[in-house]
């Protein structure tokens, strides 16, 4: 499990980093989304991963077998904040595109 997840995180991070280094704002926003997936999964993973051990209490549930709920709570917050910032970045890139006429991250085209 850990191995698969770690490889997944690595690939998403790599793709995301590649994209945020690109010149087009849309590439950057997709990159940021990928990176936030990767980071959310990373946070999620730090508590150790277990299958079928959701932190839901009930009769006869052995608490010690449950997975760590803290990273999950952190990820939830991170998802929300990630959503908010993605929305914001989108609108800012639209505004920049509107005002500068280009979708280049610097607000003007680079000479080739």
């Amino acid at each position, binding site marked *: 499990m850990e191995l698969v997840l770690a490889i997944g995180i690595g690939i998403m991070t790599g793709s995301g980093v590649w994209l945020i280094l690109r010149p087009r704002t849309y590439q950057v926003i997709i990159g940021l989304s990928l990176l936030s997936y990767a980071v959310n999964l990373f946070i999620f993973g730090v508590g150790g991963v277990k*299958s*079928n051990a*959701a932190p*839901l209490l009930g009769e006869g549930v052995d608490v010690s077998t449950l997975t760590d709920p803290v990273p999950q709570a952190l990820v939830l917050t991170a998802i929300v904040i990630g959503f908010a910032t993605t929305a914001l970045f989108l609108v800012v890139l639209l505004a920049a595109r509107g005002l500068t006429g280009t979708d280049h991250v610097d607000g003007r085209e680079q000479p080739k």
Partner: protein
Amino acid sequence: MSHTILSWAMVFAQICLVLAMALAALRMARGPRAQDRVLALDTLYVNSMLLLMVFGIRTGKVIYFEASLVIGMLGFVATVALAKFLMRGEVIE
């Protein structure tokens, strides 16, 4: 015996579904047109939903049901928006 069959059925179902997902992803990447990709995404959603339901059976827990329900109930919203974008070039007019 019946439980062995169930186990194998479960394995079979998961393999089928994950293969189906892979094929959908393939179509998603290959296109050729935008509509193919959108349809592939929708298919991927549904296949994932089914995979999650099978996972629910496998674990014997109903707590994963909501995730499937969310896909079933709300998954189409994204596809609708994508389709409308293709048709009108704009999602909300």
